[in-house]
């Protein structure tokens, strides 16, 4: 199958308007005959479900949590970018587009990335209208701050809880449409498979997490908004329930998976302290606006941070990247931290952290200002570590965070399965090989609110003329049977090891070989190890309880079974890409100073993988750069 990205005609700045002009419309009376399933209720899912319902479609929205308000977009702290140029500092849509394209190391489509920047300004208007209490100046206008990888101030925020405030806005709009009886909200339901009829997405099979009942849902189109899959590393900044099962099942049914190995490792999370830890808490990147990152120059320095004099500190980001300093992009900052930690300069009991120090900022602005900007982050830090970061430097460490990779989608956000869309973090579209901070809330929101509601009609117009197969169609029987047999199989293993035990093992392999830096031998080794984990899992996993009740062990086991398969594809992808780009750093391809060496001649394409009975076939979508010529990505 040839990949058609469906980029519209015209100049970069006209493409989205040209698309909308040519896109087919559906009259309001017909829209109510069409039914759309949205899986996931974070920013992308809630935004899409609410907006589609406003337009007149009948929507069923699913989430595994007990309420749509819990989706993990809620945890994003620092903010959301928009090219408003409110600060009069030379910002523009084109500059924002350029920053994101360069930040992604030229591995995304120009047209998609441009649209991300183009729709950012109206999105701020939208959220303000919905009642998001963004930070304001005394005069009443909106405030901005800076984020990594950019030199202007374009980030809007609501204290350190921006994601929460946006989710609550989206969730409230969703419930507005529940009240209008245009959205049916299915909480505590987890999608376990996709149903295709004549090659088109026509429904899902979901498990009711309270009763264990397997249920069928039919629709004219299916939208996946299921977020990222960095829980494959087990320890990550994600919520415990975040998983890759919906997109993995879609992949196995024919949706191509793009750039699966592009995973962002966030530089500022709290360090791991033990094996029993279940997650790594993120400390917002916004802290790098005022905090300075350093390690002791002496490897064996065991003094407290405050006791180490200025001349014995190595502010390594400021040293290596003078023009961006502590605001170097995430991939670069994480690797720089790893380099210092590996060289023996790490701090903390396990020597696995670096300092993030606010001493100078507090001296300069006063404690009040810092407290106003980051108060909740400092108190969160204290709750978890017991340390007062107003008095001592924070200890931070890199952690698995965002999945740039995801289901391949075209300009309309449709996957390679007709009628199946992927929006938000679960697609691969706008961020290339590395996402810039504060672009994630943005992408999830515009995908759901602005783009999908304007592209799905182009497909549904056809669906209107076709049959609307119900849940009694034989394909539903078939897929439901497969889902049930997978559950029976997992319950029947009755082995000797817990799900978490397998997850820890998988996470260690992936963190070691397929995270911040990768190499051929390591990846080949990882593939062998993952295959062993796979075989062992299906022989030795133990799930207690039954499948017809609330059973967290069964939920975890089903998710892990998919993670194991997905991790194989991640390693296969990382192994195939013989270059370093963005978050994908292959040790074989670096300069003498340890900077990434990209290979545009051979790798200026998006890798889109097709599932083929346990194996994967590579398809390439060549990236054409018409408006920006890829350059060496330097932040020096």
């Amino acid at each position: 199958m040839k990949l058609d990205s469906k980029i519209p005609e015209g100049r970069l700045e006209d493409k989205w308007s040209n698309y909308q002009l040519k896109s087919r419309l559906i009259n309001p009376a017909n829209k109510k005959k069409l039914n759309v399933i949205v899986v996931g209720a974070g920013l992308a899912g809630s935004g899409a479900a609410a907006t589609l319902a406003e337009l007149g479609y009948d929507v069923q929205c699913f989430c595994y949590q007990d309420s749509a308000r819990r989706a993990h977009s809620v945890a994003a702290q620092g903010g959301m970018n928009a090219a408003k140029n409110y600060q009069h500092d030379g910002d523009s849509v084109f500059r924002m587009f350029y920053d994101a394209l360069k930040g992604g190391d030229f591995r995304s489509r120009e047209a998609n990335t441009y649209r991300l920047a183009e729709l950012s300004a109206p999105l701020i208007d939208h959220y303000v209208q919905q009642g998001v209490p963004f930070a304001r100046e005394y005069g009443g206008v909106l405030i901005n701050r800076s984020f990594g990888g950019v030199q202007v101030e374009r980030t809007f925020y609501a204290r350190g809880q921006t994601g929460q405030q946006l989710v609550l806005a989206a969730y409230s709009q969703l419930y507005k449409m529940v009240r209008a009886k245009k959205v049916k909200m299915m909480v505590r339901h987890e999608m376990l498979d996709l149903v295709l009829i004549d090659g088109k997405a026509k429904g899902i099979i979901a498990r009711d997490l309270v009763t264990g009942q397997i249920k069928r849902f039919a629709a004219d189109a299916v939208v996946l908004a299921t977020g990222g899959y960095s829980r494959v590393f087990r320890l990550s900044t994600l919520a415990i329930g975040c998983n890759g099962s919906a997109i993995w099942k879609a992949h196995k049914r024919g949706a191509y998976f793009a750039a699966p190995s592009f995973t962002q490792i966030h530089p500022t999370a709290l360090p791991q302290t033990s094996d029993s830890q279940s997650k790594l808490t993120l400390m917002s990147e916004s802290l790098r606006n005022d905090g300075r990152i350093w390690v002791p120059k002496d490897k064996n320095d065991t003094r407290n941070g405050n006791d180490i004099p200025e001349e014995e500190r190595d502010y390594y980001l400021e040293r290596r990247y003078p023009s961006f300093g502590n605001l170097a992009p995430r991939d670069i900052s994480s690797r720089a931290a790893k380099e210092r930690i590996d060289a023996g300069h790490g701090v903390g009991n396990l020597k696995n952290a670096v300092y993030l120090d606010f001493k100078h900022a507090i001296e300069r602005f006063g404690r009040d200002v810092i407290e106003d900007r980051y108060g909740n982050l400092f108190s969160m830090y204290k709750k978890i570590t017991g340390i007062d970061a107003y008095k001592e430097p924070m200890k931070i460490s890199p952690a698995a965070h965002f999945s740039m990779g995801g289901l391949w989608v075209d300009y309309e956000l449709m996957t390679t399965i007709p009628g199946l869309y992927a929006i938000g973090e679960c697609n691969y579209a706008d961020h290339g090989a590395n996402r810039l901070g504060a672009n994630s809330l943005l992408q999830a929101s515009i995908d759901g609110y602005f783009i999908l509601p304007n592209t799905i009609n182009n497909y549904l117009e056809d669906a209107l003329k076709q049959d609307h197969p119900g849940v009694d169609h034989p394909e539903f029987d078939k897929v439901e049977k497969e889902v049930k047999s997978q559950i029976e199989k997992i319950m029947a293993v009755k082995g000797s090891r817990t799900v978490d035990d397998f997850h820890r093992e998988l996470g260690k392999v992936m963190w070691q070989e397929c995270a911040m830096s990768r190499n051929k031998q390591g990846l080949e080794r990882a593939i062998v190890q993952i295959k062993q984990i796979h075989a062992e899992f299906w022989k030795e996993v133990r799930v207690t309880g039954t499948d017809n009740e609330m059973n967290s062990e069964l939920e975890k086991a089903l998710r892990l079974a998919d993670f194991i398969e997905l991790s194989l594809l991640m390693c296969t992808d990382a192994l195939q890409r013989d270059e370093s780009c963005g978050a994908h750093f292959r040790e074989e391809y670096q300069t003498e100073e340890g900077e990434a060496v990209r290979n545009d001649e051979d790798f200026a394409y998006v890798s889109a993988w097709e599932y083929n009975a346990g194996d994967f076939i590579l398809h390439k979508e060549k990236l054409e750069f018409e408006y920006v010529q890829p350059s060496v990505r330097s932040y020096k």
Partner: protein
Amino acid sequence: MKVTFKIWRQDSPKSKGVLKSYETDGISEDMSFLEALDHLNEILVAKNEKVVAFEYDCREGICGQCGLFINGRAHGPHEHTTACQLHMRSFKDGDTIVVEPWRAAAFPIIKDLVVDRSAFDRIIEKGGYISAKTGTAPEANAMLIPKEIADASMDVAACIGCGACVATCKNASAALFTSAKINHLNKLPQGKPEQHRRVLDMTAQMEAEGFGSCTLTGACEVECPAGISIASIAEMNNRYVRAKLLG
């Protein structure tokens, strides 16, 4: 460290529950409380027993899904914190820790420590939003909102919807939760057009769900992880009276 958990076990909404004791070893001080429960569940799996059902998701204090009554207090011994942010260093070796679900008629138990908080969603459904369609927004800076107003709105908008306020209230009142959403929106100019209807509809739903009445004991503000003050309830009451008179 060694800890004994006394945990509420209840198979289903209708079945009878009981407090069961579990002795655990190998707990470290750095574990979060929920990680200690994970640890217990791994022990139960090893013994071929059913795991304890409990709620969690983000494990960083923001999603509001975890909610446990620990030694008689919502979210455990500390003020303004969630169960996921509570660490075992707050307990001593040899402690017995009693873990119960949220107790409120409007939050029926589903299983063990898991309750149904969908009543909160239904309160939001009745007006916890601004009725404006996607695509109709004016330029953001065209509306000036003084910093004091934006900050005060944010103070209450920070509610994570965990239900600790209900669980800790002797009347099982949802006044703090409901007031937080009403005040978040009604303080802002965007929320003004629907302000009276919002107060009346949301409070009516709050009562219909079977939450008790607020007697301003202040228990809720002690436990609220977002530090929302009961002044928010007083403000809601004031808005309610104005809505009745003017709405």
